[in-house]
């Protein structure tokens, strides 16, 4: 028991050190105010783009809607759902893809990946520690987006419809899948060389398109729709819309009950957790075999 507690305490200490180091790496180039501007600029701008698009449609003269559209003037509640999902997508951009960028930067830019491997902290704990900082940054980004929406853009929901318990479960599951897939992507980045840059950027953009963050997945082509249904984030965003904004996505998702949405979120999260655990260590072994840990190919 003492050994277990000691091991746990040691792991936490290492994770805390890695988190502190992560903060130093990510934030030591600017003062906190400037850093906050840089951190918030992209997500807030995306939120403003969405609001401007919605504003343009509301003010548009009546015209023939596009195929698959829900008719002129979609209900505000539908847009609120998209906006909320877009705010939470900060976790995918910052944590999931950010862990891959950590590997890329450590190896290609700073050339310190081999020292991380050689240190007593170890790569896995180091990544876990770095993810803590990224979670914190994503949380700030998400809250800022929701607050700007609420107070400046009028993107509001009725608190009476918030289902706190399912919402909490959904948030925990969503964050867990973000972390697990982040490890998988970090592992893949270990094997890839400079192509990691493309894969990571692609993952950022593809997740925005595939998970139906800002539109119903019904609008995706048929085979792609099945890919979307296989991703935990599609279910996560649907759960957030239902349990926080009080309004699910129209179309295909309406065929699922709240319990089914939570069930599928759980199933996909566990599946990807198992895949990520196996995949990370498999990629790690492959990277060692290929000699990729100290192979710089970009800078």
């Amino acid at each position: 028991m003492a050994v277990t507690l000691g091991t746990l305490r040691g792991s936490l200490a290492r994770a805390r050190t890695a988190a502190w180091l992560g903060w130093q790496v990510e934030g030591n180039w600017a003062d906190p105010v400037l850093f906050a501007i840089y951190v918030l600029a992209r997500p807030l701008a995306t939120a403003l783009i969405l609001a401007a698009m919605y504003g343009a449609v509301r003010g548009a003269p009546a015209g023939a809607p596009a195929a698959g559209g829900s008719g002129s003037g979609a209900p505000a509640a539908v847009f609120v759902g998209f906006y909320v999902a877009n705010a939470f997508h900060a976790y995918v951009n910052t944590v999931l893809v950010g862990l891959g960028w950590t590997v890329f930067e450590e190896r290609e830019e700073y050339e310190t990946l081999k020292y991380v491997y050689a240190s007593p902290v170890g790569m896995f704990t180091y990544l876990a520690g770095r993810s803590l900082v990224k979670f914190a940054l994503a949380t700030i980004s998400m809250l800022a987006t929701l607050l700007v929406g609420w107070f400046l853009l009028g993107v509001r929901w009725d608190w009476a419809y918030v289902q706190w318990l399912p919402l909490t479960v959904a948030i925990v599951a969503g964050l867990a899948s973000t972390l697990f897939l982040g490890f998988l992507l970090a592992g893949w980045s270990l094997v890839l060389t400079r192509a990691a840059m493309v894969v990571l950027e692609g993952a950022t953009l593809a997740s925005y398109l595939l998970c139906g963050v800002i539109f119903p997945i019904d609008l995706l082509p048929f085979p792609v729709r099945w890919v979307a249904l296989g991703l935990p984030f599609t279910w996560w965003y649907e759960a957030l819309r239902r349990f926080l904004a009080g309004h699910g996505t129209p179309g295909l998702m309406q065929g699922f009950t709240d319990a089914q949405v939570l069930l599928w979120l759980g199933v996909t999260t566990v599946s990807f957790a198992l895949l990520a655990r196996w995949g990370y260590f498999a990629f790690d072994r492959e990277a060692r075999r290929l000699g990729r840990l100290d192979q710089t190919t970009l800078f």
Partner: protein
Amino acid sequence: MQPAIARRPRHTGARLFVQATLARTYVRIVGSLREPTWMLSDAIFPNLGMCAFVLLYRALGAPRAYEALAVIGGVLTTYWINVVWGMGAQLYWEKQQGQLQLYFAAPCSRLAILSGMALGGLAATMLRSLVGVAIGLWVFHIQVAPFSPWVLAGVFALTMVALYALGMTLASLFLLYGREAWHTANAMQEPVYFLSGLYFPIRTLGAVGSVAAGVLPLTLGTDALRQVLLGPTAQGLLPLGQEAIALAGFGALFLWLAGRAMAYLEALSKREGRLTQRWQ
């Protein structure tokens, strides 16, 4: 007695400028074709965001003309990304690779090198932006109004000159900075997309849109190209002629500014010892 190696004529002035420009153009084009993954990312990725925004318009039941607005904006993001990362941040990459000093040891003008980067980047990006055009036409079936190809070519050329001249100015600024360059380039994506109204009519922004048009050539270029391709449904900010004149002014201003900024910041970087400093 003949020397073993014939002495080559030394080129100076305009001829050296043109040769250096062409040499850098060649390197940029060949370099962009040598890495297949980068070709893929440059051609596909900017369009993924555009697809998401077009689908949002469909979900909101917007008129079809809005999808065309978003597609034109999406195609122009390809150029903006090239301007920011391929022009603005290029000298930062060179610094990280440890070869920036070679640029400054070369006997040619720095502006010739920047011009070559711009020409090469533009040529490579034009090919890749065709993917966005293809997606717009064949996947989303956007419709354009009848237009004059000459007017389109003229407005496009003015927009590109203004954009890449801005890129040359940014390259000078980024010369001085280290990691700030990376973060600045990141911060110049979505915020600029918003201020340029790439995915919605710029008129939606009201006064903010007018101010943006006075500062960012991308705003005016996007609006002008939409007016050419979509006619009245583009909901243009200013008459097309005025926007063309403003774009020409932007081009001249940024070209002049690039020369001044390069000379000043090169001297400052040397004085502060930051020209060859990596990982700062």
